């Protein structure tokens, strides 16, 4: 009997990733599980706002559209789908998904949701029970920004996803679970790994970390980009895992991109902090134990991974409102483009000042895009640019001031130096600044629920 292999692919690195990722993954090669990642800190606050206006919203609607597209393959090939598309309203997402499946004519498909991560309505209760939810970076108590909080979610691990799978769910929709849990959960479920087997949990976590940004481990955003074949048809990553906790990173045959020790290690260091302490709700993974080996073209074997017992706390992601900002852009072309662009910026500040609107220097930004703004102090600015993009922005607690700023860009076309163009898309408008408040909470104060329904 051949060894059991479980194939898990990630088709969506973030909300906004190409719709082709999941579509091509289910069509172009074998797959047991398809995962999709939709949530970022800022996303949670946007979803919370949508839900407050309409109780049927607050989840990743793109997920439902994608699922509709891939449903025939998912059902025919019995592919299981796991996504954190539930946002702050997994129940509504579940209903939308069930409706989509019924409309397509498939009955008996089980759709599970994981909830309990959303603690926005429990914040005061948690604070009163002795959880100060202090800012992990600077130790401030949450009370300082309590009235400006927009969303609050606990990072959930693999356990409730495993529970949903063991209850027969073909589609599992989570809220704010960690990205790697989407991948480690099916491996724990399939191989029956114990939640006290730290090495296996760490292996699942590392597998999840490698694929969580989609094509970033298969040649996307790779330093040696010229060596990456057929980037337009880049293959999204597939994990082929074995019961012993070793796994291969690969991609479907005849897709673009590449899987090499270099492409995988590039992704391993992405978003890395202390490599020995990669803390998740399930385990503390030790990235300094990872061994990589190129076993075939486009196939890297990952082994040796160790981990330690999970922490007593869970991480909480709280977002809060921090005022408003607007950024606009003009193209300034012709001789002395840079000098003219700088003059344009000065004119904007002076005209705002004439109207009584001032922004402190720390809350203003002027970038001459094309002159090396990304490498300030590192690379010499090129000389005599024939054109630059003037990117100019402000932030302020006062929304009206930010909108007033937006009115002074277009006038430069007719009342500034010559060669000002590229003003499209209307006035830049104030958008809310969402700041991030990382905190910890005792894991015993958080209970997750799993609900399964059938189409």
């Amino acid at each position, binding site marked *: 009997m051949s060894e059991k292999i479980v194939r898990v692919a990630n088709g969506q690195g973030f909300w906004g990733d190409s719709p082709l990722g999941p579509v091509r993954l289910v069509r172009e090669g074998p797959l047991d599980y398809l995962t999709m990642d939709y949530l970022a800190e800022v996303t949670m606050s946007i979803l919370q706002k949508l839900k407050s206006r309409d109780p049927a919203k607050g989840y990743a609607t793109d997920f439902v559209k994608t699922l509709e597209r891939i449903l025939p393959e998912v059902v025919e090939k019995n592919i299981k789908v796991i996504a954190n598309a539930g946002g702050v309203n997994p129940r509504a997402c579940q209903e939308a998904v069930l409706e989509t499946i019924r409309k397509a004519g498939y009955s008996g498909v089980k759709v599970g949701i994981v909830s309990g991560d959303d603690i926005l309505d429990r914040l005061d209760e948690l604070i009163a029970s002795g959880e100060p939810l202090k800012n992990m970076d600077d130790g401030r108590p949450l009370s300082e920004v309590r009235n400006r909080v927009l969303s609050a979610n606990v990072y959930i691990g693999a356990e409730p996803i495993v529970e949903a799978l063991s209850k027969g769910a073909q589609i599992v929709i989570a809220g704010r679970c960690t990205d790697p849990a989407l991948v480690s959960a099916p491996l724990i479920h399939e191989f029956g790994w114990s939640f006290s087997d730290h090495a296996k949990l760490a292996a699942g976590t590392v597998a999840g970390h490698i694929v969580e940004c989609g094509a970033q481990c298969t040649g996307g955003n790779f330093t040696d980009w010229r060596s990456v074949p057929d980037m337009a048809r880049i293959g999204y990553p597939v994990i082929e895992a074995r019961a012993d906790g070793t796994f291969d990173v690969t991609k479907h045959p005849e897709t673009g991109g590449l899987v090499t020790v270099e492409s995988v290690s590039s992704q391993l260091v992405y978003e890395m902090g202390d490599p020995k302490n990669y803390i998740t709700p399930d385990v503390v993974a030790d990235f300094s134990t990872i061994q990589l080996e190129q076993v075939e073209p486009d196939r890297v074997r990952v082994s040796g991974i160790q981990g330690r017992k999970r922490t007593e706390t869970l991480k909480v992601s709280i977002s809060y409102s921090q005022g408003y900002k607007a950024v606009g852009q003009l193209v300034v072309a012709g001789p002395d483009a840079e000098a003219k662009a700088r003059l344009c910026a000065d004119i904007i500040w002076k005209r705002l000042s004439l109207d009584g609107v001032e922004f402190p220097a720390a809350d203003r930004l002027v970038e001459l895009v094309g002159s090396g703004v*990304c490498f300030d102090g*590192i690379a010499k600015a090129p000389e005599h640019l024939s054109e630059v993009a003037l990117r100019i922005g402000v932030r302020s607690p006062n929304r009206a001031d930010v909108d007033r700023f937006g009115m002074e860009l277009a006038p430069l076309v007719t009342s500034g130096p010559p060669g000002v163009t590229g003003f499209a898309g209307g006035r830049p408008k104030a958008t809310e600044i969402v700041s991030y408040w990382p905190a910890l909470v005792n894991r015993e104060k958080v209970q997750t629920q799993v609900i399964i329904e059938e189409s």
Partner: protein
Amino acid sequence: MATVPLSKIAYSRSGDKGDGSNVGVIARRPEFYDVLLDELTAERVKKHFSRICRGKVERFEVPNLHALNFLLHDSLGGGGSESLKSDAQGKTHGLGLLMMEVEVPDALLGE
């Protein structure tokens, strides 16, 4: 000794981490790892990013991947959606580090 851009002996990736960025640098060949250890001190990296990174620079060693990981604190012009910068997520910091000039023994470069 030869002076070469870091890109000659390493590749990199970077992204946001709170109000700072992380920059991972990986040696192109195992034998270049010692060069990274010697040349890429936290102090030198901080100086290299002096106009971008306003906080401290922390360095972690990842010998199994022949890699170093740097945390560049306060380098994004604010965390979350606070920043006004083009590169509010530090996506280009990895390429910025590869522009650093490093000293490499001739014997390691020649082949």
